[in-house]
């Protein structure tokens, strides 16, 4: 079994969100970078669990980004990927990124392609679906559980107001979220081993992006909290009813 796990680099969840160059660029100075939590905790760890259950399984990691992604990929390798491919390009357009990943996926003949449900920076939730369409494969989004039975998979995914159980013949693209696996911390052996694992850098193929970010804005600051005395909680209900008009 060959699994491809898509890995994205995102700012740490506590990073200060600010913009530079006339609000056209994310201000990356001093920002701590992490593996996108959905990619790491759910997609990658579930892939590692599948490998632990079947030693013949191979996990490849793919990321689209410049050399500053390498520490993140090394960490993913330390957690348990076998080999990584970095496509040397800087883009925030989902179609551009998905096209590069689909090229890698086509070449590698993977039975499984895992992505996180979205990245915590651009919140596109698009890469999995786009890769699936580019490969003409079925796509199961927002999966919370993944079980392999021979050449098919049983997947539980979240739907509005509940969940759905799906079965699908491999190959398939799956976007992963909470429930799929539990977060792991790389151990010393993994970190040492990751240094000698292959990290292949390939140049991107020519693809025209569909979209471009023109600028960023920050939301207006809140006016400040109106505090109500704990001795008079009825006043809060009145304010919500008469002033905010939300109940």
């Amino acid at each position, binding site marked *: 079994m060959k699994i491809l796990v898509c890995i994205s680099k995102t700012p740490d*969840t*506590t990073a200060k*969100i600010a*913009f530079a160059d006339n609000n056209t660029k994310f201000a990356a100075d001093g920002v701590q970078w992490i593996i996108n*939590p959905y990619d790491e905790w759910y997609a990658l760890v579930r892939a590692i669990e599948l490998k632990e259950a079947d030693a013949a399984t191979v996990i490849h990691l793919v990321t689209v980004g410049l050399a500053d992604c390498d520490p993140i990929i090394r960490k993913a390798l330390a957690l348990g990927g076998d080999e990584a491919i970095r496509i040397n390009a800087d883009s925030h357009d*989902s*179609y551009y990124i998905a096209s590069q990943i689909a090229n890698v996926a086509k070449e590698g003949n993977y039975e499984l392609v895992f992505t996180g449900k979205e990245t*915590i*920076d*651009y*919140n*596109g*939730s*698009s890469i999995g*679906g786009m890769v*699936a*369409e*580019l490969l003409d494969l*079925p*796509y199961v*989004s*927002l999966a919370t559980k993944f079980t392999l039975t021979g050449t098919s998979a049983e997947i539980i995914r979240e*739907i*509005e*107001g*509940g969940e*759905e*159980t*799906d*079965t*699908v013949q491999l190959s*398939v693209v799956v976007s992963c979220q*909470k*429930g799929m696996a539990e977060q792991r911390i790389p151990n010393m052996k993994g970190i040492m081993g990751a240094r000698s694992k292959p990290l292949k850098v390939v140049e991107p193929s020519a693809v025209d*992006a*569909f*979209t*471009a*970010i023109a*600028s*960023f*804005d*920050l*939301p207006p600051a*809140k006016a400040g*909290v*109106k*505090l*109500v005395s704990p001795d008079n*909680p*009825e006043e*809060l*209900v*009145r*304010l*919500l*009813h008469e002033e*905010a008009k*939300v*109940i």
Partner: protein
Amino acid sequence: MSVLIFLDQADGHIKKSAFEAACYGAAIAKQTGTIAEAIVLGSINDDLAAIGQYGITKVHTVKNDALNHVDAQVFTKIIADAATATGATVIIFSNNFNGKAIAPRLSVRLKAGLVSGAVALPDTSNGFIVKKNVFSGKAFANVAINTAIKIISLNPNSFSVVTTIGTAEVAAFAANVDAAKVTVTNTNKVVGEVPLSEAEIVISGGRGLKGPENWSLVTDLAKLLGAATACSRPVADIGWRPHHEHVGQTGLAIAPNLYFAIGISGAIQHLAGVNRSKTIVVINKDPEAPFFKAADYGIVGDAFEVMPKIIEAVKKMKGLI
């Protein structure tokens, strides 16, 4: 040239988020001097002509029980064919679970740029620029779509539903319905509860509530207000509440009219999922809790003393006692 809106349904009824998408699409049609049409797949019990009141001229239907479950691949093909047949240049989805499954595929199939998570009407004065949420609600990006066909998926609760008088023409669309490669073997829906992603009011509890046995402080108020319930991540992690209630950076991101947080500290990762809520109320015994900085109303007090009084006051307001 027209705007095509995908109307998402569940159990034969059009979803609330789909009406928002319809109004949003109709507003874009008006802005760009064209008409808004809609497509709905599967068996529907609602009166589809009534969709006209949301500004929709024509509703294309594909009545087929196989389409009562959303299969991203099958749906994409039908919607792509409908878009081509109707000459749609703008296609609208709700950025809900189904929108997230279908819109990216459609983007590739039609070579149409997608902006997911839009929060406002596009600026068409110079190009086609759509404002969307980024950094989990901490910022917005204005994204230019540079393709001839444009796809937008609208964040739920970002655009108001306004109705006028109008009747839509309802017409069957002759679609080729492929056999789905994904077989749905079971669905499990929480009945009688308001889905969190669509809820206008959300009552949420954190670790400050001490244990699942105290959750009636959350659920009683939710029931009175017809609200959905949510929780912080540790609460779902320890199993006090089901995982689907977890909101925040690594859970669901929501934007209700009222988010009512009880015993939640307001960590940055929690705020990331709820800071788009229109009104935020915080009940916390610690005056230094970071959540107060993001709140509109608050009480510094013990939830176990304050909440029963609030529940009583709501009952009085509703004329129940």
